[in-house]
Protein backbone atom coordinates (compact mmCIF):
# COMPACT_ATOMS: atom_id res chain seq x y z
CA UNK A 1 0.00 0.00 0.00
CA UNK A 2 2.80 2.37 0.89
CA UNK A 3 4.40 1.22 -2.30
CA UNK A 4 1.45 2.68 -4.15
CA UNK A 5 1.60 5.92 -2.22
CA UNK A 6 5.19 6.22 -3.21
CA UNK A 7 4.32 5.84 -6.86
CA UNK A 8 1.69 8.51 -6.50
CA UNK A 9 4.27 10.92 -5.18
CA UNK A 10 5.74 10.99 -8.66
CA UNK A 11 2.53 12.53 -9.95
CA UNK A 12 2.25 15.01 -7.13
CA UNK A 13 3.11 18.28 -8.83
CA UNK A 14 0.10 19.20 -10.91
CA UNK A 15 0.91 20.73 -14.28
CA UNK A 16 -0.43 24.26 -14.76
CA UNK A 17 -1.76 23.91 -18.29
CA UNK A 18 -5.37 22.86 -18.01
CA UNK A 19 -5.18 20.25 -20.75
CA UNK A 20 -2.25 18.45 -19.18
CA UNK A 21 -3.81 18.88 -15.81
CA UNK A 22 -6.90 17.10 -17.07
CA UNK A 23 -4.74 14.28 -18.40
CA UNK A 24 -2.96 13.98 -15.10
CA UNK A 25 -6.24 13.78 -13.21
CA UNK A 26 -7.46 11.00 -15.52
CA UNK A 27 -4.18 9.17 -14.96
CA UNK A 28 -4.45 9.54 -11.21
CA UNK A 29 -8.04 8.30 -11.24
CA UNK A 30 -7.11 5.22 -13.24
CA UNK A 31 -4.23 4.61 -10.88
CA UNK A 32 -6.60 4.92 -7.92
CA UNK A 33 -9.17 2.62 -9.50
CA UNK A 34 -6.51 0.00 -10.22
CA UNK A 35 -5.30 0.26 -6.66
CA UNK A 36 -8.80 -0.11 -5.30
CA UNK A 37 -9.39 -3.21 -7.43
CA UNK A 38 -6.15 -4.76 -6.18
CA UNK A 39 -7.29 -4.11 -2.64
CA UNK A 40 -10.67 -5.66 -3.40
CA UNK A 41 -9.06 -8.74 -4.94
CA UNK A 42 -6.75 -9.27 -2.03
CA UNK A 43 -9.58 -8.81 0.47
CA UNK A 44 -11.79 -11.27 -1.40
CA UNK A 45 -9.02 -13.84 -1.13
CA UNK A 46 -8.97 -13.25 2.62
CA UNK A 47 -12.67 -14.11 2.93
CA UNK A 48 -11.56 -17.70 3.54
CA UNK A 49 -10.18 -16.47 6.88
CA UNK A 50 -13.53 -14.94 7.87
CA UNK A 51 -14.59 -18.01 9.84
CA UNK A 52 -11.67 -18.04 12.23
CA UNK A 53 -12.92 -17.11 15.69
CA UNK A 54 -11.42 -13.63 15.91
CA UNK A 55 -12.25 -12.67 12.35
CA UNK A 56 -15.76 -14.04 12.85
CA UNK A 57 -16.21 -11.72 15.78
CA UNK A 58 -15.01 -8.73 13.76
CA UNK A 59 -17.33 -9.61 10.86
CA UNK A 60 -20.23 -9.88 13.31
CA UNK A 61 -19.42 -6.47 14.76
CA UNK A 62 -19.32 -4.93 11.29
CA UNK A 63 -22.59 -6.63 10.31
CA UNK A 64 -24.19 -5.18 13.40
CA UNK A 65 -22.83 -1.67 12.78
CA UNK A 66 -23.89 -1.75 9.13
CA UNK A 67 -27.34 -3.05 9.89
CA UNK A 68 -28.17 -0.86 12.85
CA UNK A 69 -26.54 2.42 11.94
CA UNK A 70 -28.86 3.23 9.09
CA UNK A 71 -32.04 1.40 10.00
CA UNK A 72 -33.88 4.53 11.13
CA UNK A 73 -33.16 6.53 7.99
CA UNK A 74 -33.84 3.56 5.75
CA UNK A 75 -37.24 3.06 7.38
CA UNK A 76 -38.32 6.63 6.71
CA UNK A 77 -36.87 6.80 3.22
CA UNK A 78 -38.31 3.43 2.16
CA UNK A 79 -41.74 4.32 3.43
CA UNK A 80 -41.86 7.67 1.68
CA UNK A 81 -40.38 6.30 -1.54
CA UNK A 82 -43.25 3.83 -1.74
CA UNK A 83 -45.77 6.52 -0.88
CA UNK A 84 -44.44 8.92 -3.50
CA UNK A 85 -44.38 6.20 -6.15
CA UNK A 86 -47.96 5.25 -5.38
CA UNK A 87 -49.15 8.82 -5.40
CA UNK A 88 -47.43 9.82 -8.63
CA UNK A 89 -48.39 6.76 -10.63
CA UNK A 90 -51.79 6.60 -8.98
CA UNK A 91 -52.73 10.13 -10.03
CA UNK A 92 -51.84 9.36 -13.65
CA UNK A 93 -53.48 5.94 -13.65
CA UNK A 94 -56.67 7.39 -12.17
CA UNK A 95 -57.21 9.32 -15.40
CA UNK A 96 -57.73 5.94 -17.08
CA UNK A 97 -59.51 4.41 -14.12
CA UNK A 98 -56.56 2.09 -13.62
CA UNK A 99 -55.51 3.13 -10.12
CA UNK A 100 -55.64 -0.45 -8.86
CA UNK A 101 -52.48 -1.07 -10.91
CA UNK A 102 -50.40 1.03 -8.54
CA UNK A 103 -49.73 -2.28 -6.80
CA UNK A 104 -47.76 -3.54 -9.78
CA UNK A 105 -46.14 -0.21 -10.45
CA UNK A 106 -44.90 0.29 -6.92
CA UNK A 107 -43.76 -3.30 -6.47
CA UNK A 108 -41.85 -3.54 -9.72
CA UNK A 109 -40.19 -0.18 -9.39
CA UNK A 110 -39.25 -0.86 -5.79
CA UNK A 111 -37.75 -4.30 -6.19
CA UNK A 112 -36.10 -3.71 -9.54
CA UNK A 113 -34.68 -0.27 -8.96
CA UNK A 114 -35.64 1.94 -6.07
CA UNK A 115 -35.06 -0.56 -3.28
CA UNK A 116 -31.39 -1.28 -4.00
CA UNK A 117 -30.80 2.27 -5.23
CA UNK A 118 -32.18 4.03 -2.16
CA UNK A 119 -30.58 1.55 0.22
CA UNK A 120 -27.27 1.98 -1.58
CA UNK A 121 -27.37 5.76 -1.33
CA UNK A 122 -28.20 5.70 2.36
CA UNK A 123 -25.58 3.09 3.19
CA UNK A 124 -22.97 4.98 1.18
CA UNK A 125 -23.75 8.19 3.02
CA UNK A 126 -23.93 6.68 6.49
CA UNK A 127 -21.82 3.52 6.63
CA UNK A 128 -19.45 4.26 3.73
CA UNK A 129 -18.56 7.69 5.02
CA UNK A 130 -18.05 6.32 8.54
CA UNK A 131 -15.68 3.63 7.23
CA UNK A 132 -13.69 6.19 5.25
CA UNK A 133 -13.45 8.47 8.27
CA UNK A 134 -12.38 5.64 10.57
CA UNK A 135 -9.77 4.15 8.25
CA UNK A 136 -8.64 7.64 7.25
CA UNK A 137 -8.05 8.60 10.86
CA UNK A 138 -6.18 5.34 11.37
CA UNK A 139 -4.01 6.08 8.36
CA UNK A 140 -3.03 9.61 9.37
CA UNK A 141 -2.37 8.59 12.97
CA UNK A 142 -0.04 5.82 11.73
CA UNK A 143 -2.20 3.00 13.04
CA UNK A 144 -2.18 1.38 9.60
CA UNK A 145 1.59 1.70 9.49
CA UNK A 146 1.75 0.06 12.90
CA UNK A 147 -0.37 -2.84 11.62
CA UNK A 148 1.88 -3.24 8.59
CA UNK A 149 4.99 -3.33 10.75
CA UNK A 150 3.36 -6.02 12.89
CA UNK A 151 2.69 -7.86 9.60
CA UNK A 152 -1.04 -7.67 10.19
CA UNK A 153 -2.43 -7.18 6.72
CA UNK A 154 -4.94 -4.29 6.70
CA UNK A 155 -6.83 -5.94 3.86
CA UNK A 156 -7.44 -9.00 5.99
CA UNK A 157 -7.81 -7.23 9.31
CA UNK A 158 -9.87 -4.19 8.30
CA UNK A 159 -11.13 -4.35 4.72
CA UNK A 160 -12.37 -7.95 4.57
CA UNK A 161 -14.81 -7.73 7.52
CA UNK A 162 -16.27 -4.49 6.16
CA UNK A 163 -16.55 -5.92 2.68
CA UNK A 164 -18.33 -9.04 3.91
CA UNK A 165 -20.62 -7.01 6.17
CA UNK A 166 -21.68 -4.66 3.39
CA UNK A 167 -22.10 -7.39 0.76
CA UNK A 168 -24.30 -9.40 3.15
CA UNK A 169 -26.20 -6.54 4.74
CA UNK A 170 -27.06 -4.64 1.55
CA UNK A 171 -29.45 -7.30 0.16
CA UNK A 172 -31.00 -7.83 3.58
CA UNK A 173 -31.62 -4.12 4.02
CA UNK A 174 -32.87 -3.93 0.45
CA UNK A 175 -35.53 -6.54 1.18
CA UNK A 176 -36.55 -4.45 4.16
CA UNK A 177 -36.69 -1.31 2.01
CA UNK A 178 -38.76 -3.12 -0.60
CA UNK A 179 -41.27 -4.36 1.94
CA UNK A 180 -41.67 -0.99 3.61
CA UNK A 181 -41.96 0.76 0.26
CA UNK A 182 -44.69 -1.59 -0.86
CA UNK A 183 -46.53 -1.14 2.44
CA UNK A 184 -46.18 2.64 2.13
CA UNK A 185 -47.64 2.48 -1.38
CA UNK A 186 -50.49 0.38 -0.10
CA UNK A 187 -51.33 2.89 2.59
CA UNK A 188 -51.39 5.77 0.11
CA UNK A 189 -53.51 3.61 -2.17
CA UNK A 190 -56.00 2.90 0.58
CA UNK A 191 -56.19 6.40 2.04
CA UNK A 192 -55.71 8.69 -0.96
CA UNK A 193 -56.68 6.73 -4.05
CA UNK A 194 -59.43 4.47 -2.80
CA UNK A 195 -57.68 1.20 -3.65
CA UNK A 196 -58.59 -1.50 -1.14
CA UNK A 197 -55.63 -3.12 0.61
CA UNK A 198 -56.59 -6.60 -0.61
CA UNK A 199 -56.83 -5.45 -4.23
CA UNK A 200 -53.47 -3.69 -3.90
CA UNK A 201 -51.80 -6.82 -2.57
CA UNK A 202 -53.33 -9.06 -5.22
CA UNK A 203 -52.23 -6.65 -7.91
CA UNK A 204 -48.77 -6.26 -6.40
CA UNK A 205 -48.06 -9.98 -6.32
CA UNK A 206 -49.58 -10.84 -9.69
CA UNK A 207 -47.12 -9.29 -12.11
CA UNK A 208 -43.86 -9.06 -10.25
CA UNK A 209 -41.56 -11.93 -11.15
CA UNK A 210 -38.88 -13.68 -9.17
CA UNK A 211 -36.39 -12.40 -11.70
CA UNK A 212 -37.16 -8.84 -10.65
CA UNK A 213 -36.36 -9.69 -7.07
CA UNK A 214 -33.14 -11.54 -7.92
CA UNK A 215 -31.82 -8.81 -10.17
CA UNK A 216 -32.62 -6.23 -7.50
CA UNK A 217 -30.80 -8.21 -4.85
CA UNK A 218 -27.87 -8.81 -7.18
CA UNK A 219 -27.66 -5.05 -7.57
CA UNK A 220 -27.72 -4.66 -3.82
CA UNK A 221 -24.76 -7.02 -3.40
CA UNK A 222 -22.81 -5.20 -6.10
CA UNK A 223 -23.59 -1.83 -4.49
CA UNK A 224 -22.40 -3.17 -1.15
CA UNK A 225 -19.11 -4.26 -2.69
CA UNK A 226 -18.74 -0.89 -4.41
CA UNK A 227 -19.35 1.07 -1.21
CA UNK A 228 -16.94 -1.07 0.83
CA UNK A 229 -14.25 -0.85 -1.82
CA UNK A 230 -14.51 2.90 -2.34
CA UNK A 231 -14.72 3.66 1.39
CA UNK A 232 -11.82 1.43 2.41
CA UNK A 233 -9.63 2.58 -0.46
CA UNK A 234 -10.28 6.24 0.24
CA UNK A 235 -9.65 5.69 3.94
CA UNK A 236 -6.42 3.77 3.45
CA UNK A 237 -4.98 6.30 0.99
CA UNK A 238 -5.78 9.33 3.14
CA UNK A 239 -3.01 11.89 3.44
CA UNK A 240 -2.47 15.21 5.15
CA UNK A 241 -4.10 14.84 8.52
CA UNK A 242 -7.60 15.89 9.48
CA UNK A 243 -8.17 17.75 6.21
CA UNK A 244 -7.39 14.56 4.37
CA UNK A 245 -9.91 12.61 6.43
CA UNK A 246 -12.61 15.09 5.49
CA UNK A 247 -11.64 14.80 1.85
CA UNK A 248 -11.65 11.00 1.96
CA UNK A 249 -15.13 11.02 3.46
CA UNK A 250 -16.51 13.43 0.90
CA UNK A 251 -14.95 11.53 -1.99
CA UNK A 252 -16.33 8.25 -0.71
CA UNK A 253 -19.89 9.57 -0.78
CA UNK A 254 -19.55 11.20 -4.19
CA UNK A 255 -17.78 8.31 -5.90
CA UNK A 256 -20.17 5.75 -4.39
CA UNK A 257 -23.21 7.77 -5.51
CA UNK A 258 -21.93 8.05 -9.06
CA UNK A 259 -20.96 4.41 -9.27
CA UNK A 260 -24.28 3.25 -7.85
CA UNK A 261 -26.08 5.25 -10.53
CA UNK A 262 -23.93 4.11 -13.43
CA UNK A 263 -23.51 0.47 -12.39
CA UNK A 264 -27.21 0.27 -11.48
CA UNK A 265 -28.09 1.37 -15.01
CA UNK A 266 -25.67 -1.13 -16.53
CA UNK A 267 -27.06 -4.03 -14.53
CA UNK A 268 -30.61 -3.11 -15.52
CA UNK A 269 -29.53 -3.00 -19.14
CA UNK A 270 -27.75 -6.31 -18.86
CA UNK A 271 -30.80 -8.14 -17.54
CA UNK A 272 -33.71 -6.42 -19.29
CA UNK A 273 -32.60 -5.76 -22.84
Amino acid sequence: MFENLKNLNGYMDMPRRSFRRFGRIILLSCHGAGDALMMLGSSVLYIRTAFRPRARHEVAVQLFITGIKSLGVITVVAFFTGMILALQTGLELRRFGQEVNIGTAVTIVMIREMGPFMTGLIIAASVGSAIAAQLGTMTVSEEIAALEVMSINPNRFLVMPRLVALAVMMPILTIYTNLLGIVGGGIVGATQLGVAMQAYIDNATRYAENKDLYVGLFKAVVFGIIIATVACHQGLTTREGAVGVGRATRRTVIISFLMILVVGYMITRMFYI
Partner: protein
Amino acid sequence: MISFEQITKTLGGKTVLDDVSFEVPRGETVVIVGLSGAGKSVTLKHMVQLFSPDCGTVRIGEDVISAAKGAELERMRQRFGVLFQGAALLQWLTVFENVALPLREKTDLSEEEIEKTVLDKLRLLNMEDAVDKFPADLSGGMQKRVGLARAIVMNPEIILYDEPTSGLDPVTARLIDQLIENLRSELGITSVVVTHDLHSALAIGTRIMMIDGGKIVENATPHDFIHSENETVQRFLESQYITRRGSWEKGMQTHG
Protein backbone atom coordinates in the same frame (compact mmCIF):
# COMPACT_ATOMS: atom_id res chain seq x y z
CA MET B 1 22.95 -4.76 12.02
CA ILE B 2 21.13 -1.96 10.21
CA SER B 3 22.96 -0.18 7.45
CA PHE B 4 21.91 2.71 5.26
CA GLU B 5 23.81 2.87 2.00
CA GLN B 6 23.52 6.16 0.16
CA ILE B 7 19.87 6.70 0.85
CA THR B 8 18.14 9.56 -0.92
CA LYS B 9 14.48 10.31 -0.36
CA THR B 10 12.40 13.17 -1.68
CA LEU B 11 8.98 13.80 -0.15
CA GLY B 12 6.56 16.42 -1.39
CA GLY B 13 9.27 18.07 -3.50
CA LYS B 14 11.72 18.35 -0.60
CA THR B 15 14.86 16.21 -0.33
CA VAL B 16 14.47 14.88 3.20
CA LEU B 17 17.43 12.47 3.10
CA ASP B 18 20.31 13.32 0.80
CA ASP B 19 22.79 10.51 0.16
CA VAL B 20 22.76 9.31 3.75
CA SER B 21 24.95 6.39 4.87
CA PHE B 22 25.40 5.05 8.35
CA GLU B 23 25.47 1.87 10.34
CA VAL B 24 23.76 0.70 13.52
CA PRO B 25 25.99 -1.99 15.04
CA ARG B 26 24.44 -5.05 16.67
CA GLY B 27 23.67 -4.63 20.36
CA GLU B 28 24.09 -0.87 20.40
CA THR B 29 21.69 1.99 21.03
CA VAL B 30 21.96 4.66 18.38
CA VAL B 31 20.21 7.92 19.18
CA ILE B 32 19.09 10.18 16.36
CA VAL B 33 18.68 13.86 17.18
CA GLY B 34 17.80 16.79 14.99
CA LEU B 35 15.43 19.70 14.64
CA SER B 36 11.75 19.22 13.99
CA GLY B 37 11.19 18.20 10.37
CA ALA B 38 14.82 17.16 9.91
CA GLY B 39 13.78 13.68 8.77
CA LYS B 40 14.27 11.60 11.90
CA SER B 41 10.94 9.79 11.65
CA VAL B 42 11.45 9.32 7.91
CA THR B 43 14.83 7.70 8.63
CA LEU B 44 13.25 5.36 11.16
CA LYS B 45 10.48 4.40 8.76
CA HIS B 46 12.99 3.43 6.09
CA MET B 47 14.26 0.73 8.44
CA VAL B 48 10.95 -1.13 8.28
CA GLN B 49 10.11 -0.14 4.70
CA LEU B 50 7.23 2.14 5.58
CA PHE B 51 9.10 4.34 3.15
CA SER B 52 11.20 3.05 0.28
CA PRO B 53 14.26 5.05 -0.71
CA ASP B 54 14.44 6.76 -4.10
CA CYS B 55 18.05 5.58 -4.32
CA GLY B 56 20.20 3.40 -2.11
CA THR B 57 19.66 0.29 -0.03
CA VAL B 58 18.72 -0.40 3.56
CA ARG B 59 20.09 -3.65 4.95
CA ILE B 60 19.12 -5.53 8.07
CA GLY B 61 22.03 -7.86 8.67
CA GLU B 62 22.41 -9.51 5.27
CA ASP B 63 18.84 -8.87 4.15
CA VAL B 64 17.99 -5.97 1.87
CA ILE B 65 14.76 -4.73 3.43
CA SER B 66 14.36 -1.75 1.11
CA ALA B 67 13.60 -4.08 -1.83
CA ALA B 68 11.81 -6.88 0.02
CA LYS B 69 8.22 -7.90 -0.73
CA GLY B 70 5.50 -10.15 0.58
CA ALA B 71 6.45 -12.99 2.90
CA GLU B 72 10.10 -12.02 2.85
CA LEU B 73 9.32 -8.49 4.02
CA GLU B 74 7.01 -9.91 6.66
CA ARG B 75 9.81 -12.12 7.98
CA MET B 76 12.20 -9.16 8.17
CA ARG B 77 9.66 -6.92 9.86
CA GLN B 78 9.08 -9.56 12.50
CA ARG B 79 12.55 -8.86 13.84
CA PHE B 80 11.42 -5.34 14.75
CA GLY B 81 9.39 -3.69 17.44
CA VAL B 82 8.37 -0.14 16.61
CA LEU B 83 7.11 2.63 18.88
CA PHE B 84 5.49 5.31 16.73
CA GLN B 85 5.69 9.00 17.48
CA GLY B 86 1.95 9.16 18.18
CA ALA B 87 1.81 5.70 19.81
CA ALA B 88 -0.56 4.53 17.01
CA LEU B 89 -2.81 2.41 19.24
CA LEU B 90 -6.01 1.03 17.76
CA GLN B 91 -8.74 3.20 19.24
CA TRP B 92 -11.45 0.56 19.50
CA LEU B 93 -9.31 -1.91 21.43
CA THR B 94 -8.52 -1.67 25.13
CA VAL B 95 -4.99 -1.28 26.41
CA PHE B 96 -4.82 -5.01 27.04
CA GLU B 97 -6.17 -5.91 23.59
CA ASN B 98 -3.77 -3.49 21.92
CA VAL B 99 -0.75 -5.07 23.54
CA ALA B 100 -2.14 -8.57 22.98
CA LEU B 101 -2.86 -7.92 19.29
CA PRO B 102 0.47 -9.10 17.82
CA LEU B 103 0.43 -12.17 20.06
CA ARG B 104 -3.11 -13.05 19.04
CA GLU B 105 -2.58 -12.42 15.36
CA LYS B 106 0.90 -13.86 14.96
CA THR B 107 1.35 -16.63 17.54
CA ASP B 108 -0.50 -19.74 18.72
CA LEU B 109 -0.15 -18.92 22.41
CA SER B 110 -3.07 -19.79 24.67
CA GLU B 111 -5.16 -17.02 26.21
CA GLU B 112 -3.52 -17.59 29.62
CA GLU B 113 -0.02 -17.27 28.23
CA ILE B 114 -1.01 -14.15 26.33
CA GLU B 115 -2.52 -12.63 29.44
CA LYS B 116 0.60 -13.34 31.44
CA THR B 117 2.95 -11.89 28.81
CA VAL B 118 0.86 -8.77 28.30
CA LEU B 119 0.52 -8.05 32.01
CA ASP B 120 4.26 -8.57 32.48
CA LYS B 121 5.08 -5.98 29.85
CA LEU B 122 2.51 -3.52 31.15
CA ARG B 123 3.86 -3.92 34.69
CA LEU B 124 7.33 -3.14 33.38
CA LEU B 125 5.97 0.22 32.23
CA ASN B 126 3.81 0.93 35.29
CA MET B 127 0.67 0.62 33.20
CA GLU B 128 -0.95 -2.45 34.75
CA ASP B 129 -3.78 -0.38 36.23
CA ALA B 130 -4.98 0.76 32.82
CA VAL B 131 -5.55 -2.66 31.20
CA ASP B 132 -9.26 -2.14 30.59
CA LYS B 133 -9.11 1.49 29.52
CA PHE B 134 -9.39 2.66 25.94
CA PRO B 135 -6.56 4.71 24.38
CA ALA B 136 -8.80 7.79 24.15
CA ASP B 137 -9.07 7.80 27.97
CA LEU B 138 -5.30 7.88 28.45
CA SER B 139 -2.90 10.82 28.45
CA GLY B 140 -0.34 11.11 25.66
CA GLY B 141 2.41 9.81 27.89
CA MET B 142 0.36 6.82 28.97
CA GLN B 143 -0.45 5.99 25.35
CA LYS B 144 3.26 6.13 24.59
CA ARG B 145 3.95 3.57 27.29
CA VAL B 146 1.24 1.25 25.98
CA GLY B 147 2.72 1.65 22.50
CA LEU B 148 6.07 0.72 23.96
CA ALA B 149 4.60 -2.35 25.64
CA ARG B 150 3.17 -3.40 22.29
CA ALA B 151 6.53 -2.82 20.59
CA ILE B 152 8.37 -5.14 22.97
CA VAL B 153 5.69 -7.77 23.49
CA MET B 154 6.99 -10.06 20.74
CA ASN B 155 10.54 -9.87 22.14
CA PRO B 156 12.04 -8.37 18.97
CA GLU B 157 15.77 -8.20 18.39
CA ILE B 158 15.65 -4.63 17.09
CA ILE B 159 13.52 -1.88 18.59
CA LEU B 160 12.84 1.50 16.99
CA TYR B 161 11.62 4.25 19.31
CA ASP B 162 10.22 7.49 17.91
CA GLU B 163 10.38 9.98 20.78
CA PRO B 164 9.74 7.50 23.60
CA THR B 165 9.96 10.11 26.36
CA SER B 166 8.28 13.14 24.83
CA GLY B 167 5.16 14.03 26.74
CA LEU B 168 6.30 12.12 29.80
CA ASP B 169 7.08 13.56 33.21
CA PRO B 170 10.80 13.50 34.04
CA VAL B 171 10.43 10.62 36.49
CA THR B 172 8.64 8.35 34.03
CA ALA B 173 11.02 9.49 31.30
CA ARG B 174 13.96 8.19 33.34
CA LEU B 175 12.07 4.93 33.86
CA ILE B 176 11.81 4.53 30.09
CA ASP B 177 15.49 5.41 29.67
CA GLN B 178 16.31 2.73 32.21
CA LEU B 179 14.16 0.22 30.35
CA ILE B 180 15.87 0.94 27.04
CA GLU B 181 19.26 0.66 28.69
CA ASN B 182 18.32 -2.63 30.36
CA LEU B 183 17.07 -4.11 27.09
CA ARG B 184 20.47 -3.40 25.60
CA SER B 185 22.70 -4.45 28.47
CA GLU B 186 20.73 -7.53 29.55
CA LEU B 187 19.23 -8.84 26.31
CA GLY B 188 21.64 -7.35 23.77
CA ILE B 189 18.85 -5.70 21.84
CA THR B 190 19.73 -3.28 19.08
CA SER B 191 17.88 0.02 19.39
CA VAL B 192 17.42 3.18 17.42
CA VAL B 193 15.97 6.03 19.44
CA VAL B 194 14.72 9.32 18.05
CA THR B 195 14.57 11.98 20.72
CA HIS B 196 14.72 15.70 21.39
CA ASP B 197 15.85 15.10 24.93
CA LEU B 198 19.63 15.35 24.92
CA HIS B 199 19.95 14.31 28.52
CA SER B 200 18.31 11.01 27.81
CA ALA B 201 20.26 10.73 24.54
CA LEU B 202 23.53 11.06 26.41
CA ALA B 203 22.40 8.62 29.08
CA ILE B 204 21.23 5.76 26.86
CA GLY B 205 23.07 6.19 23.56
CA THR B 206 26.15 4.25 22.64
CA ARG B 207 26.30 6.51 19.60
CA ILE B 208 24.56 9.79 18.84
CA MET B 209 23.76 10.92 15.36
CA MET B 210 22.52 14.33 14.32
CA ILE B 211 20.57 14.90 11.11
CA ASP B 212 20.36 18.34 9.59
CA GLY B 213 19.48 19.47 6.08
CA GLY B 214 19.15 15.90 4.83
CA LYS B 215 22.69 15.01 5.91
CA ILE B 216 24.23 13.40 8.93
CA VAL B 217 26.27 16.17 10.44
CA GLU B 218 27.65 14.17 13.35
CA ASN B 219 27.80 10.50 14.27
CA ALA B 220 29.86 9.88 17.39
CA THR B 221 29.99 8.41 20.88
CA PRO B 222 28.28 10.56 23.54
CA HIS B 223 31.63 11.82 24.75
CA ASP B 224 32.77 12.85 21.28
CA PHE B 225 29.34 14.23 20.50
CA ILE B 226 29.44 16.88 23.20
CA HIS B 227 32.97 17.76 22.15
CA SER B 228 31.97 18.01 18.51
CA GLU B 229 33.46 20.86 16.50
CA ASN B 230 30.39 20.97 14.28
CA GLU B 231 28.52 24.24 14.62
CA THR B 232 25.05 22.79 14.23
CA VAL B 233 25.78 20.28 16.93
CA GLN B 234 27.19 22.96 19.23
CA ARG B 235 24.15 25.15 18.76
CA PHE B 236 21.94 22.15 19.50
CA LEU B 237 23.88 21.37 22.67
CA GLU B 238 23.79 24.95 23.86
CA SER B 239 20.07 25.14 23.34
CA GLN B 240 19.71 22.44 25.98
CA TYR B 241 22.25 24.06 28.32
CA ILE B 242 24.83 21.38 27.82
CA THR B 243 28.32 22.80 27.54
CA ARG B 244 31.50 20.85 27.07
CA ARG B 245 32.39 20.47 30.69
CA GLY B 246 28.92 21.10 31.86
CA SER B 247 26.14 19.62 33.84
CA TRP B 248 25.94 16.36 31.99
CA GLU B 249 29.41 15.04 32.85
CA LYS B 250 28.96 16.06 36.44
CA GLY B 251 25.58 14.36 36.46
CA MET B 252 27.03 11.16 35.07
CA GLN B 253 29.81 11.14 37.65
CA THR B 254 27.42 11.34 40.56
CA HIS B 255 25.31 8.62 38.90
CA GLY B 256 28.11 6.23 38.21
